């Protein structure tokens, strides 16, 4: 991948350590995950301890320390979705993709995640694939949905 990516991002934030989270967010947006060498580089450029960078990267759920699939499938398990059978939808997708929640398919096409509330509670149950949110799901519709992204 592009050399100098991390440096360019850090420079855009004026090498300011307060922007650590924003920097990691931008790296993840470009790389889809946070490769360890990038974390070291961020620590070096921002002049903070590598442990702090790793701490942030592991504390916040939005960050991934392992490669993720091209399509991130997020099944909402907020309360409204939960009482409308979100767990069954998550289980179904887990079976369809043959991975546990949190896992990534070997071909790096899909990552399945469980998230807590996407804020679309009125059309529960809900799942998001990449940037597209889909509401009023049934198990059947959720499984069919995946085909569009295969």
């Amino acid at each position: 991948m592009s050399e100098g990516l991390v440096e360019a991002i850090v420079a855009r934030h004026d090498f300011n350590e307060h922007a650590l989270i924003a920097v990691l967010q931008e790296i993840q947006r470009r790389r889809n995950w946070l490769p360890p060498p990038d974390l070291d580089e961020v620590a070096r450029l921002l002049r903070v301890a590598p442990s702090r960078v790793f701490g942030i990267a592991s504390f916040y759920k939005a960050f991934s320390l392992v490669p993720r699939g091209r399509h991130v499938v997020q099944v909402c398990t907020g309360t409204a979705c939960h009482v409308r059978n979100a767990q069954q939808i998550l289980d179904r997708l887990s079976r369809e993709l043959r991975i546990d929640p949190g896992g990534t398919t070997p071909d790096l096409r899909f990552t399945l995640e469980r998230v807590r509330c996407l804020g679309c509670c009125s059309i529960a149950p809900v799942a998001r694939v990449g940037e597209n949110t889909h509401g009023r799901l049934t198990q059947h519709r959720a499984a069919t949905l995946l085909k569009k992204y295969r």
Partner: protein
Amino acid sequence: MRITEYEHLEGLARAGLQSLRPERTRIAVGTASCGAATGGREVLQAVRQDIEELGLDIDLRETGCIGFCQVEPVLEVRRPGEPRVLFHNVDARKARQIIHTLVTGRMPVEYALCWIPLDGERPTWQLPRYDQLPFYAKQQKIVLRNCGLIDPESLAEYAAGGGYRALWRALTEMSPDEVIAEVERAGLRGRGGAGFPTARKWRLCRLAAGEEKFVVCNADEGDPGAYMDRAVLEGDPHSVLEGMAIGAYAIGASEGYIYVRDEYPLAILKLERAIADAGAAGLLGRSIFGRPFNFNVYLARGGGAFVCGEETSLLQSIEGKMGEPNQRPPFPAQKGLWDKPTNVNNVETWANVPEVVGRGSTWFAGIGTGGSKGTKVFSLVGKIQNTGLVEVPMGITLREIVFDIGGGVLGGKKFKAVQTGGPSGGCIPEKFLDLPVDFDELSRTGSIMGSGGMIVMDEGTCMVDVARYFLDFLKEESCGKCVPCREGIDRMLEILARICNGEGRTEDLVLLEEFATTTKDFSLCGLGGTAPNPVLTTLQYFRDEYEAHIRERRCPAAVCRALVKYSIQYERCNDCGACLKLCPTGAIVGYDKRPHYFHADKCIKCGACLELCKPGAITVA
């Protein structure tokens, strides 16, 4: 153009009125997150294509959430001299039919839900007025005043509804202390959960020593089941910016931060646009309205951690650290962001501020109950007929919200409870349905108002499973800093999982109560301090369900997988074969046109067969 005179503001408002009451037809499609997720973008695309193909002179806009999410996607038509007409459950095909009928000059009322008055025009067609619909009849919109009405990307349309006039009033006619006094007289309390008096918070921060101060908008709407903040940010971002500017003036701050959840990408886009537009118009930045008041707003994007909704954690996160809470005191008002005095309010509170200052405290204090003034937005979701965002005056009863506005429980089932306050709240049973809803009354039931999630549960919801669900949520979200929260939640979850699995012991309930009390009393921040609420309220009001799980190894709501069995009611089965094809494990055997049989040992209880069984022949018990 920079706005420095009142006439400029009036000019902007006139421009906004012209686009809101246009001389040509205007169509707006709801494309907030919930609208988009139900096909709003496809509708928008179809309308755009038709307008181009037919060469129509139509002003096409996007708008936010109008609240009635049950009928999304929605499309609104306004023609000169006529009221607004709202179309519901629109898809691309229906949108085309609407356009093609409009071309003939007729209003296709057969697809419409209601009409909404604009300037006192009367409709010439037969259609209910919006407030004749039960869903809207008891609502009163203050916070959601512009959502779904204006184009959120238009500063002029926000100004048309009186936008930024409250800021003008504050900066030109009032001293900072007078602003705080006005908010105090209005009785505004924080809408983020705890209901702390807003004016008192502001005054503490104003009086705190220090030159540099901050205002922060908490838009880390983490409570599952609540989404009003997202709707406001996506549908009316300027209302939050104006509120923050007024607050900053009152407190003496010149910088503000909005901390937005990572899960709300659209809200971030709308805010970026609004901040840029307000900055270009001189409504943010240096010498606002030519007065000696500077105020800049920055966005901080969250990292997906629930605990960051707690204010001290949130401030840590803005500083680029792990979102771990700090002991209070010192409160952020004394020592907040970068150790400077900081005032944190949530989105809904900030959105109330321009109305409080603009329309005056007397008006605002005239709405609501003795201790809770104004309105509250609730997200009415779960097993309810009409889902959506409802804004009601404080003091309305739960029954009115659930049965009058919400239309009752989905599918005619029996009401069991309504869950409020997210993971910090509790489950309120039927006997409290006539309780007036305000900060103080709700806490009397053991629950809290919280940020306004209202998840309706019916007889098919297992309350033990709900308690387990919330603890599972909190176990993941507990930051781990203090022992009572980290270990207490874990142990309670262990016990609840055991009960749901049919392995509960008689002493479990006593043990649960003991853990709950300890966690409640000794946790460092609000997350742990309120974590046991879902357990305590379900234990208090639904103890019989716990006992059924433990003593009879039975889940009365037929939810807990280990305790239920699927079976086929042969007399109802119409032998359609749908379940045969769906069953992932081959647990259902049979042939088309012959009754099906069930292999209980192969069944993984996934529920796939339930979804497509039309005659309802598959039962779970």
